[in-house]
């Protein structure tokens, strides 16, 4: 009889966790380059009773548990900002940034220049070029980032373009293996090697918004709350059944 309680409980736990995932998506609805997460569930079958000599085969009890969260790497909408240091990546590539913990990958193209003239992310991590960090000179103006990631400037009173570097764009055979680290960064696990990406295009003056689809998230939210309430009601009925059974059975005829 307790199986039902436990099955209901397993579903409630997964629903709570799914709500956590939805909450994180919605919280990051305005986060540059954010990729939504989705929950995956799987059935977990508990082995039946050991005795196999029943008239009918004992049925296995089916629980649910969360199997995985996967990243939805669909492109987010691009917003035109006209800021020369904003880039949106058209394609599946990532920018490479150097953090204290090692190389990390990001889709957040809201870039800045630090006090040494180096190209950095909003949190100050160095953006990597194909040959090291990209450094601007104090007299540089008219920064231009080409579609292939080449960065050119006009130096001082010059009239011609001077190359300051080329953005290192990488992609992964299986981007699902990337781990979200917070701070809009992804890390690659051991043995996962980024490949240079030559098909993706860089759009200067645009920024990639979060790919969270508010309609999806809201409908999922409704679904979660309704299912949760239903299971609560189901458990309540189970409880009532128990109580009635106990009362009836304990009702000694006078």
């Amino acid at each position, binding site marked *: 009889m307790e199986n039902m309680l436990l099955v209901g409980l397993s579903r409630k736990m997964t*629903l*709570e*966790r799914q*709500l956590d*995932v*939805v*909450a*994180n998506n*919605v*919280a*990051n*609805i*305005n*986060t*540059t380059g*954010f990729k939504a*997460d989705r929950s*995956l569930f799987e059935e977990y079958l508990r082995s039946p009773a050991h005795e196999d000599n029943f008239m009918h085969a004992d049925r296995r009890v089916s629980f649910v548990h*969360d*199997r*995985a*969260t996967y990243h939805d790497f669909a492109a987010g909408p691009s917003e035109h*900002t006209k*800021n*020369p240091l904003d880039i949106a990546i058209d394609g599946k590539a990532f920018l490479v940034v150097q953090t204290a913990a090692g190389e990390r990958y990001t889709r*957040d193209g*809201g870039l*800045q*220049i*630090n*006090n040494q*003239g180096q190209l950095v992310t*909003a*949190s100050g991590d160095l953006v990597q070029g194909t040959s090291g960090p990209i450094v*601007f000179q*104090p007299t*540089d*103006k008219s920064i231009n980032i080409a579609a292939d990631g080449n960065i050119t400037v*006009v*130096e*001082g*009173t010059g009239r011609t373009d001077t190359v300051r570097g080329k953005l290192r764009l990488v992609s992964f055979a*299986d981007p699902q*293996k990337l*781990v*979200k*680290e*917070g*701070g*809009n960064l992804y890390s690659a*696990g051991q043995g996962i090697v980024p490949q240079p990406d030559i098909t993706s295009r860089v759009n200067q003056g645009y920024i990639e918004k979060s790919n969270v689809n*508010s309609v999806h998230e*809201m409908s999922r*939210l*409704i679904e*979660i*709350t309704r299912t949760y309430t239903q299971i*609560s009601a189901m*458990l*309540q009925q189970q409880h009532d059944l128990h109580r009635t059974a106990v009362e009836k059975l304990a009702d000694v005829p006078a």
Partner: protein
Amino acid sequence: MRALYTAATGMAAQELNVQVISNNIANMRTTGYKKQRAAFQDLIYDHVRRVGAQASDQGTILPVGVDIGGGVKTVGTPRLMGQGTLSPTGNDLDIAIRGEGFFKIQVPDGTYAYTRDGSFMMDAQGRVVTAQGNPVQPTITIPQNSSAITINAQGQVTVMLPGSTTPTLVGQIGLTRFINKAGLNPIGDNLFTDTPASGTPQDGVANTDGFGDMQQGNLEQANVEVVTEISDLIAAQRAYEMNAKVISAADQMLQSTSNMFR
């Protein structure tokens, strides 16, 4: 329930976003104002099942993990230093910078501040000052009785003195630039001060070495675009509402649990 706190970070972030947007809109008519933008990042993740962990004795590994995010944080409110449009005023002492550079202003405590607001005036001593009365650096004094003040693209100020047929050079307004102008610290009154993030100020002459040129008789408008701001405002407001919905959903779930087995 974790979702409650996650959604609360989202509401706080959108509230800050609305504050930044409202300050942009409030300053859409402020000369030389540079708009700000709130930049957000996701918070650290709780790796319930880490990707790549061993799933069985046979060495199969999990292709995807269970990662639960903790919400959103504000990483900064970077200033977008794009050029504002120039509007002609016809006033001799209104100067707009077209391109890189800031005017250097001496503030009352003796230190320097920097501005893109070129609506200058003359004080009682004939010095060129900002609207607050702080002198422009290097200090330029316009002689009395002089007429026809001309400021050329390099910032050279010339006047016609009575009895003279040729203009007289009375000084040159300098410009200052920073390697990271987005890292300047705004102190109000359209002024910025340098910070460790901005890099050291580099003084120079307009229209040389990558500095912008000066446009006399013009003022630089704020680079705020109303349509963009309003659409950002709508997006921020809706995002706030959606986070509030998540909180009420979490609350509803808690309620259904607490109402069980009565």
